Structure formats: structure tokens, C-alpha cells
């Protein structure tokens, strides 16, 4: 009986040891592989006026 118990214990231990169960929680990314994109800035009034002029020139040209 003792022998049977020992064999069963060894067998159970083997089964459990062979299992690749990982008790740690699933790993999540702790580092990004992306770069932060450059932020836009507020244009000056002069720069906004340049863009307005470009658009106006375009509208006139395609009429």
C-alpha cells in the first residue's frame, strides 16, 4: 500500500512538474515601441495670413 502511494505521489509530481503552467499574471507591455509625435504649435498671425493668401491665390487661379 505504501509503495502504491509512493508511486502515485511520484507520478502526480511528474505530471505537475512537466506542466508549463505559469502562475504569474500575463505580462503586459511596459515599454512602448512608438515615438511621441511632434506637437503642433500655435501659428502667428503672420503665418495664418500667409496661408490665407495661398488659399485665396488658389481659389482665384482655378476659377
Amino acid at each position, binding site marked *: 500500500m505504501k*509503495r*502504491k502511494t509512493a*508511486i502515485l505521489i*511520484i*507520478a502526480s509530481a*511528474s*505530471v505537475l*512538474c*512537466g*506542466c*508549463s503552467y505559469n502562475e504569474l499574471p500575463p505580462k503586459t507591455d511596459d*515599454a512602448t*515601441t*512608438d*515615438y511621441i*509625435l*511632434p506637437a*503642433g*504649435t*500655435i*501659428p502667428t498671425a503672420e*503665418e*495664418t495670413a*500667409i*496661408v490665407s493668401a*495661398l*488659399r485665396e*491665390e*488658389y481659389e482665384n*487661379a*482655378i476659377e
Partner: protein
Amino acid sequence: MKRLTYILPAVLALSSCKGYLDVQPQGEVIPTTDEEFAAIMDNRIFDIEGGGDEYVIGNMDAIAKYEGYADNLDANIMIGNMVAYCGDNINIRQSEWRSIFQIVRDCNIVIENLDGRTSDIAKGTLAAAYAMKGICYYNLLRNWCDPWESGRQSSQTGLPLVDRFDIKDMPVRASLERSALYTETMLENALKQENTDAKYFFTEYVIKAYLAKLYFWCEDWNETIGTCNDIIDNCGLNLTPIGEYEDMIQAGNDRKGEVIVRSHINNASELDWYFSYVKGYIASRPASSSLIRLFGDEPEKDVRYRISFDNGRFNTKTPECRVRLSEIVLMLAEAYYHTGDTENALKWLNELRSNRIEGATYYTETTLPPVRTDNRIKEDATGKPLTPLLQAILDERQKELYMEGDRWFELKRNGRPEWWIINNGLKYTTRKYMYTAPVYKGDVDLNPDFIQNPGYGD
């Protein structure tokens, strides 16, 4: 008890082996024969011919991207369905590094195993592998390295020179000079295979065209002149005249006229539905007024103007990646200019103009238009101020290679000017460092000796 004696070893053997139920992959083989290695390259060539390849010859996606970064189209008038400016694509650009090295990996597998074999299949496949790898490295040089600075090239940062497929290897970046020499060696090795079979795509003058582009990028003007003259004299093509220009440029899938090489020659590509959308995206941002002004007071006389824009200045030119004889002629003219041979520079500039503009003014040193003060490009590839002759060459190049993904690299090659656009009320500036893309961040994180390009640090 006896039964347990059998069961116990069985349990021990099976439970300690995690892979006993693994099966061999089905339908996949480790290549050994010439034909099996050829299949690796065939897949890549199939990609080019179908228009799926973005990184060797390029495709419509590549054109949409580079024209989105550059200034042929004006994002200040309308952003459209294109990337607003290059800064928005920083993460896409770093991931492209990986995609190109996947092609290099395939080429290396073929080169490593087929080198020395003498069958026609082996030589054709080797030519394709060396050529594809050389072109990939040329594209890596242009995108991920700073522009060539003569005298400084041995200290400028280049590329990792990867000779064989080894997952554990982590090569660092060589100098720009060594990287250029390595690229040249790849293309020369491709030439040595003497492939004449179009099935392997990379024949003599296709490879020489990329060699000329490499020499030009690396400011080796004498080699540029020699290679361009060889191509012009011997490739069997002539500059496409005005009357045939539209047919050549608007060809959906055919390689017509002066085209030396182009992608998307498969007229039944599974991606054609997708490209019809991409064409629409590209035609959603109007051409810039500075580009339109290059065509002069009578723009209709220039065949390139007639086929490139509709009434709203939106694109009508077929956006396909090609290398054409016109580009070879323009490189030749500029190389002559940089060697001080004004006569030949003018000769080739006029040769191109006479095949593009009805009644084109024949330029001489005295009739060249003066340098404009509002040019975005202020200095040439060597850092000198523009002259009337070089301005005229660069103008023709901008008009000729419009919507072929060239302008972004012209800006990079000639001084990397900074400029801005306004999108949704905010100003975004194309900074000097942005002309050089970031290398894949994963490679930098993995290897502390791997140098990231300036501007993309922590």
C-alpha cells in the same frame, strides 16, 4: 503492480516532454534546390509586378507617402486624404526599417546558398537577390542616413551591413562610406551574374540605373557621368518625344517608351481595387503654386503640365514608381554641372526640354533665368548657393519627376530646408532632422550600441 511498472515510466516520459505532440509544418520545406531558392525571389518579384512592393521599386503607397511629405502638393491649401507632413509618419517610418530588412533577409538566404552555383536558374535568382538587396540598401541610405557630405562620409553614420541570416546577430551601424561601398558591391555582384532573362526582373540596365542613382546620391559625379552615358548609349532606349509622352506616363501596367524599369506591370493584380482608392487619395491635395509657376506663362506648351493636373490643380498623372531615361539625363546634366562641364550640362538640359516643351527656349549661359529668391531649395548638394544653371536643372527635375516620389529626396539632398504647414489650426514644421527617418526603436532598445538617428532620442 506490474501494470504500474509500465504506467509510471510512460507518465514520466510523456509528462516531461512538452513537444511530443508537435507535428512537422505541412507544406513548408527548407529550400535546398535551385528551384526552391528561386521561389523565394519569385515571391518578391511577384510583389513588385503586382504593385504590392513598397520598398524595392516602390508602389502607389510609396508615392502617396513621399508626395505627402514633400511640397509638390500644398497641404496649406488642402490636406486631403494624405499624410499632413512627415512628422505624422515617424512611427510608420521606423517600422519600414523592419520591412526592408525582411527583404534583405530573404536575399541573404538566397545569396548564402546559391553563390557559386552555375545553372541558369541559380544565376538569374542570384542576380535578383543581389540587385534587390543592393536596391534595398540604396533605399535605406536615402531614408535612414543623413545626406552625403563629401569629406565627412567616413564619420557619418551608415547602416548595419548584414551578410547572412542570423537571428542572434546584432550588427551595429557602419559608416556611411562603407555602407555606400557595400551597396555598390551588391549591385556589381548582380551585374556579374549577366542575367538577360526578364523573368528575373533585374537585367543589366535596370541594375546600372540603380548604380547611377547610388553614385548620384553619394556625389560621385565622375562615376555618375560614366554610368549614365553607358545607359544612354547602350540601353536601346531614347528620350520619349512629346507626342508619345502621355501614352508612356499614363500606361496602366505597360513599360512603354523610355521606362527602364517600373513596378505594377501585372495587369490583373489583386491590389488593383485598392490602387483605385490610392489614386483618389493622391488627387485630394492640389499642386502647389510654386510648382505650377515652374511651367511658365504658357504652361500648356509643356506636355508634363497638360497630363499632370486638372482644372483644380489635382493630380491626373498615373502615380507609378519607375526609373526612366529622363532621370538618367537629369542626373547626367547635374553631374556635368558639378564637375564644371557647363557645356555638357546645358546640352543634356536642352535635350530634355526639347522633348517636353513645344518650342522650348534653347538655354545658354546667358539666357538662363536668374535664381529666384523664393526657392525652397537655397543650396545645392555640396552646400553651395544655387546658380541659374543648377536651378534650371532642378526645375526640370521637379517637373519631370513630379508624382514619382522624387521631390522629398531632392529636398533632402539639397540642404534639407525647414518649412511648415498649418493643419487644424496648428503649425507643424518639417525639421531638418526629419528628412532622416528613425531606425526601428526595437533594434535600438535591444542593442545599446545601435545608434538612433538624431532627433529621435528619449
